[in-house]
């Protein structure tokens, strides 16, 4: 009899523990931020072309269910066709080549606090003397909780 009671109470304890754990899972945010690279105002888009010696304005449309963190952009060459591209449509690529003076740009864009939707704008100057060709335009967006979404676009510097 005693043994049965003990067994029942132990199983009861296990059930109690299992029940407790359900409570606060809804309170935490598990939603990744979003980057819209297709919307009308967004630039660059997949397969966009930009000119050497000129400037262009990058416009990153980012959103999050709670609060955005920060935006980071990165331009690096893809002369070796290494593909970070997360977009389905491929672009016309130049032949594989060896870089001489490829453009490298790394920039972080602060997002003001409390935003759930934000258009990060950044003027980017492309020096006249960099290698023309295929590049990647990598966008990283975080939210306040530390979830990160990455989009990789293929662009061409003419």
């Amino acid at each position: 009899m005693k043994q049965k009671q003990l067994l029942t109470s132990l199983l009861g304890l296990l059930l109690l523990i299992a029940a407790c754990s359900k409570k606060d899972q809804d309170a935490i945010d598990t939603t990744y931020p979003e980057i819209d690279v297709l919307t009308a105002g967004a630039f660059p888009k997949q397969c966009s072309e930009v000119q050497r010696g000129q400037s262009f304005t990058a416009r990153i449309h980012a959103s999050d269910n709670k609060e955005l963190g920060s935006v980071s952009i990165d331009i690096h060459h893809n002369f070796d066709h290494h593909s970070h591209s997360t977009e389905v449509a491929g672009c016309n690529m130049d032949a594989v080549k060896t870089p001489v003076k490829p453009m490298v740009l790394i920039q972080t864009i602060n997002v003001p606090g409390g935003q759930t939707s934000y258009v990060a704008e950044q003027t980017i100057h492309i020096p006249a003397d960099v290698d023309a060709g295929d590049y990647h335009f990598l966008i990283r967006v975080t939210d306040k909780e530390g979830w990160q979404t990455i989009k990789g676009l293929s662009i061409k510097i003419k």
Partner: protein
Amino acid sequence: MLNMDIVKAGFIQQHLGGSLMQSLQRLPGVKTIGIGSGQSKPLIRGLGFNRVVVLDRGIKHEGQQWGADHGLEIDQFTVQEVEILKGPASFTYGSDAIGGAVNIKRPPLPAPQTFGGDINLIGKTNNNLLGTSINVYARTQRWMTTARFTLQDYGDYRVPADRLYIYDFAVDLYNHYLRNTAGRETGLHLNTGYIGDRVKSIFYLSHTYSKTGFFANAHGLEPRQVDVAMHDASSRDILSPYQRVNHFKALNHTSFQINQHQLELESGFQNNVRQEYNHYVNHGYMPAIYPDSLGIPRNLERAFDKQVYSLHLRDHLQLNEHKVEFGLNGELQHNTINGWSFLVPAFNQQSWGTYIYDKWNLTQKLLLHGALRYDHVHLAMKKYTDWFPSATTINGQTQQEYLVRADNINRSFNSVTGSLGFNYNTNRWELKGNIGKSFRVPIAKELGANGVNYHYFSYEKGNTYLKPEESYQLDLGAAYDNAVVRIQLNPFFNYFSNYIYLNPTANHDYFYGAGNQVFEYAQARVMRYGGELQVKYQPWENLSTEVLGEYIYAKQLSGDKKGYTLPFSPPASVLFNITYRPAHTGIFTNTYLSVDYRVTAAQNNIVPPEKKTDGYTLLNLQAGTRFLIQEQQAELSLQLQNALNTRYLSHTSFYRLIGLPEQGRNLVLSLKIPFSFKQATQP
């Protein structure tokens, strides 16, 4: 005594997986962090990496266990008996055993006046593995020698999928093969020593080597375009990226008997070298063309070289109802790094500890035990400067700077830990309880990381001011056994006052982090609880059923990720088993047929950068028998793993974040044939 599972070589033979921990993950509360089909490391009740100690024949195994793409460098064919301690075991094994310990015991000695051995042949259909492990032993009355050679060669493993998406990037798989996940490994072992009446001393020499490929279409989280024709030409070749791991060990175990004292001295030297090879990719500010003048091989992305000297002295003493163990541990580590990518600085580490452990048989039924331990650890990290300049803009002027990633930093840690517990045994019941404090000193990566892990798009930043982790744990155990039914329940409750974790922040760093998300080491209060339930019901002698359940819940109680769980939290799961052991099978003996059906729950309790993982069910079948070959008992084992070719993701796999499914159907065959040149004379 803590909650412990003991597993023998027969279990490993019956459930043989790609690596030791994969063979053991059938046990409740034991999971693995796996990479590919041949490598994994332990995850005990949701804690892994440097929170689990692997003890190999008395000496702590030291590899690069902090890395997610690291596998335990143990040849599973050498393992005759292994104890898995679920719960904090720092008081005997030191820092790092805060989550548990895997204790690989010394193999039993061959019987006197014998000479023989065995050959193990292994074949697997999923990754076309072919392997063998050959063992030879010889012993006179006083002297013994055993030697083992293991060789395994496997191809790319296959998954039940034709196409995968890494982010949105589509990857088509050729004949379901995960490109470049092939590998090969060898193990060489030589043990020799003297067995006297009062003195015993045995040397253990071993060298394990493995070369394994990483999935070619993604290195870490980064999708890669690959030369499909080149990769699909052979499923057995290993191309870039790949890793090479060498682990050498020279251990000695000596014991003396002096009056009531039994003294044991365990000493060892280990050298672990892990090299990661990859095509040079100029991430961030690295130059587009790799310079020839650097003196680092062009394809060597990272390398870690670890040399460890260990010493462990123990005295066992019987004093009336008290069994006392007194011990001293010391360890010296020398770590160097190489490669064009930087993550963790080189460092030296010295640690020593002393402990006393008392088991007190108060009555026939009641045993009390307690332990007290003191530890001191000193860590000296070495300066590292980037070999390439990074760009920064100050007052509109672009400047170039060679970044200092790590400085010469020294840290010392002291710690006092202990535990108290009881065991109460009656005819049918076994009750136990244990309460203890454990600790873990921060590792060099947690203190001194300052580099971009391009496999994860993360800039990992250490924190020199971290305190040693402290953990308080209550373990309970109740078991009931009446020969037909055995029920065992092992709940635990665990509290960390300062759990160390890598916190993905909301920020990016354009200078040190080359535009990547900042992942910073931080400390938080953490609560964890859970447990295991084991039920075995044996209505008839030849039929038994078993239910093994496990559950873990973890929650951070403070800090930036308050409310979130801990990374790599395994989902709840239940395993149902039916085993049939026919009694009369002619020339065949010890025959068994066994079905394992595992139901794994979804894991929706996640923390950045994890992804929710769906639940799944898996069916595994095992069968085996023994028969005589030349008067020797040969052992044949067959397994059909993932019998239904289920496509599923393992929440704790290295490849989970890029969504690679686990191995598909796999038929595993293993045949063990003993041979003998000289048998022990029957007394």
